[in-house]
């Protein structure tokens, strides 16, 4: 295959690829460098938190439950599987769906050279992902088990060896996965349902793991796993091939009582398996690449159809339909908005439960109404922040909103109506689930019915205020930075502003309720609030919320016609 390949062309294509991704031909200003630096710091901070979590997780398995080899089996399996998913996405995106395939095929370079240069990028990307994911886990394991220096070299070797597997698997399954994705991508409701389920599952797993880590941190003597659970882990690890081979290669001598010959055999198994995957990937990619990208270029615009009747609807109905379908039919928008809105009740419930467990034990049950309020408003703010792109999302079609014989006020009202329906439903379901649980025996009566009703009511008012403010912000400064099919390239600054504002309101309202439930407050000799008696506090917050709502509506609708007319894309 390589006999017709010019490595000069491959190198040039690879450098071109890197330059288009990371290079820049002109100097950037201080603002850009600052934002880049902030991004790096943010990434490092998140990574540091993850490493800390890994450290506690390793401790839970290794020190507390003595599941050393089993832990290695589990992490090698989890990391290889996660890396395979990431690599598959990367291969699909770069090899098959990249828009530059069409451009590159016009150059005097062969398909083989394009494939090779892109594969080099995918491989390096996979290596970086695997190293960042696997190495800290193995190093943490070494640190916790006080492994000798030589083991650390074996960790590096196993990481390099393991990183090949996701890359080869990705190349083998990329085309079928892509075809599957193409088959379901226009099933918008199905995609939305799957997204909501995955989002909820990921969040629940995250919060349950976090809960376990926090439990571990609170009581370092308590065992996380029951004896049955430990036995189950051991049984699973015994049969979890090929992942057990990696674990044995790392620590089979120390924890598995394996001899040098047995370890060599494990290495041989891994080498043979990797080679087999490599050969399969080589032939499948070589066979599928050209016809897939040619087919992609030919049919990239092909979409499914939908037949409707030519039936007259009211103006409001038509505007609502259009707004909803444009959100539903975009994966990005439906994830950012609809999936978040529908998943919010589950997220709020589990977040409340975690906060309740931690807060009640450290501060006391009186914290619960405030926590509920805070968590609800934070998640609502995340959902509602989508409204802060209400104008920007019109993109190139913004002109039509000015040409149509419908007043700007009506158009904005309809958008407000749609966002309000979704957000108020989300708040209602969230409040009902949390309220029902915490006013019951199961929830330990952490909330009174008055608490639950007040949190719901105030939450609804806050959600309407935030929606109006988000929309007003986007009318003031929209950014029509859209991609080819009319979707926003990135969230604008209004989204960040909306989130900050929502979190601010959540903290202020939550803290006020918490403080008032702890400290009895009297005004002019009369008790304003005391523990379990927050009626006046809720009335006060309702009043404040209503004032904020009135001001938000004023900000949205006062002088709307002129402000809207002044928007020039």
């Amino acid at each position: 295959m390589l006999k017709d390949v010019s490595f000069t062309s491959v190198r040039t294509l690879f450098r071109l690829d890197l330059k288009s991704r990371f290079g820049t031909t002109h100097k950037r200003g201080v603002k850009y460098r600052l934002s880049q630096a902030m991004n790096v710091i943010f990434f490092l901070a998140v990574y540091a938190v993850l490493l800390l979590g890994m450290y506690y997780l390793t401790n839970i398995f290794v020190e507390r439950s003595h599941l050393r080899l089993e832990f290695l089996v589990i992490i090698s399996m989890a990391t290889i599987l996660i890396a395979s998913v990431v690599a598959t996405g990367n291969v699909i995106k770069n090899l098959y769906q990249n828009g530059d395939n069409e451009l590159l095929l016009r150059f005097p370079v062969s398909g083989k050279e394009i494939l090779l240069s892109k594969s080099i990028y995918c491989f390096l990307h996979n290596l970086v992902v695997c190293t960042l994911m696997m190495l800290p886990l193995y190093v943490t394991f070494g640190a916790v088990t006080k492994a000798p220096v030589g083991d650390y070299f074996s960790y590096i070797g196993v990481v390099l060896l393991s990183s090949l597997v996701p890359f080869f698997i990705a190349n083998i399954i990329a085309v079928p996965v892509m075809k599957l994705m193409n088959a379901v991508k226009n099933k918008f409701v199905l995609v939305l349902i799957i997204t909501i389920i995955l989002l909820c599952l990921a969040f629940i797993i995250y919060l349950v793991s976090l809960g376990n880590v926090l439990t571990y941190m609170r009581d370092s003597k308590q065992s996380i796993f029951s004896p049955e659970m430990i036995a189950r882990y051991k049984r699973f690890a015994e049969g979890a091939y090929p992942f057990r081979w990696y674990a044995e290669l790392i620590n089979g001598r120390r924890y598995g009582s394996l001899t040098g010959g047995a370890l060599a055999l494990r290495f041989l198994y891994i080498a043979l398996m990797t080679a087999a995957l490599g050969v399969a990937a080589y032939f499948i990619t070589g066979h599928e690449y050209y016809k897939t990208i040619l087919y992609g270029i030919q049919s990239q615009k092909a979409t499914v159809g939908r037949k409707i009747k030519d039936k007259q609807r009211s103006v409001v109905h038509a505007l609502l339909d259009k707004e909803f379908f444009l959100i539903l039919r975009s994966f990005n928008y439906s994830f950012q908005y609809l999936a978040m809105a529908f998943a919010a009740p589950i997220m709020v419930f589990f977040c409340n439960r975690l906060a309740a467990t931690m807060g009640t034990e450290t501060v006391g049950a009186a914290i619960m109404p405030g926590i509920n309020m805070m968590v609800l408003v934070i998640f609502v703010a995340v959902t509602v922040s989508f409204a802060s792109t209400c104008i920007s999302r019109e993109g190139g079609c913004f002109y039509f909103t000015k040409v149509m014989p419908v007043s700007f006020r009506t158009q904005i009202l309809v958008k407000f109506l749609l966002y309000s329906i979704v957000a108020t439903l989300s708040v209602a379901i969230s409040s009902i689930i949390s309220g029902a649980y915490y006013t019951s025996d199961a929830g330990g009566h952490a909330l009174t019915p008055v608490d639950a009703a007040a949190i719901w009511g105030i939450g609804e008012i806050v959600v309407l205020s935030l929606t109006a403010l988000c929309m007003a912000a986007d009318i003031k400064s929209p950014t029509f930075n859209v991609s080819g099919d009319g979707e926003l390239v990135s969230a604008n600054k209004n989204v960040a502003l909306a989130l900050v504002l929502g979190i601010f309101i959540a903290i202020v309202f939550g803290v006020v309720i918490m403080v008032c439930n702890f400290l009895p407050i009297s005004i002019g000799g009369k008790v304003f609030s005391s523990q379990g008696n927050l009626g006046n506090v809720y009335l006060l917050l309702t009043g404040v919320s209503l004032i904020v709502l009135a001001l938000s509506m004023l900000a949205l609708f006062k002088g709307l016609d002129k402000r809207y007319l002044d928007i020039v894309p």
Partner: protein
Amino acid sequence: MLKVSHLKKIYPKSDRVAVDDISFELRPGEIFGFLGQNGAGKSTTIKCLTGILPFDSGTIEICGYDIVKEPIKAKMNMGYVPDNHSVYEKLTGREYVNYVADLYKVSSELRKERMDRYAKLFRLEFAMDKQIKSYSHGMKQKICIIAALIHEPKLWVLDEPMMGLDPQSTAEIIAHMREHCAKGNTVFFSSHNLDLVKKLCHRVAIVNEGHMLDLIDLADNEENKNNLEEKFFRITGTYDERLFEDYVAQESADMRPDLPASAERAEETAEETHEDAPAEETTGKAEEPEALSAEDMIPDEKEGETPAEE
């Protein structure tokens, strides 16, 4: 039908007057051309009269309704086709036209009859139930035209409508402009195509640097028709005798350069050279069987999945 009086527009944060004191009036049954170079103020004027841009002074009336004071009534009488053919790409063609029809309150029966008629006229029937994102440039332009006509507007405004259209579609749009006017409606369009404007329009306005420099009657004036190009070049300050003669010659004569006498021989020589060259020296790597001659590798497209007709 359309009355523009002393229109003036200055873009925010700009010293330049984009449109300065432009006035004209369109009559029922008239096709009116709007000519000018790039940046002359054509699109700005059109955006002002369609309600897209606010303006600094002057008045615009559509069918007697002031676009500022009674915008909804004014817009109800107008159909607009933009130059960038932006449409909601996630909607199907039928959904988009129905959406527009709803906004203009067109009854179910009327819209069905019109949609079928226009889809047939513009040969877009096969694509009406497909998402617009699968449409070609010309198809998007056509769906914009259908949407603009679905309420049979009295004033039909088109911003450079023929750009990117195939000859047949151009001919269909011209035919429909004439038909629209025959019903007593008015067509207002901007264009760079002097020949088209000369043949199609009753009157034409020439704008340059924001000013309307001339309003030329073409309907009953052969001299104006014949001199339109020269007038345009002179008015816009781009007249150069040699270039103008070239332009006129191109319009009236066959300008295809002759093939060199030895052309055939040159082609044969090139073929021979190509065949003789060693494989590694032929830079046509794209000629490798995998890369180019791979028709049989492309899966057959299902009927109706063809993304674009053009």
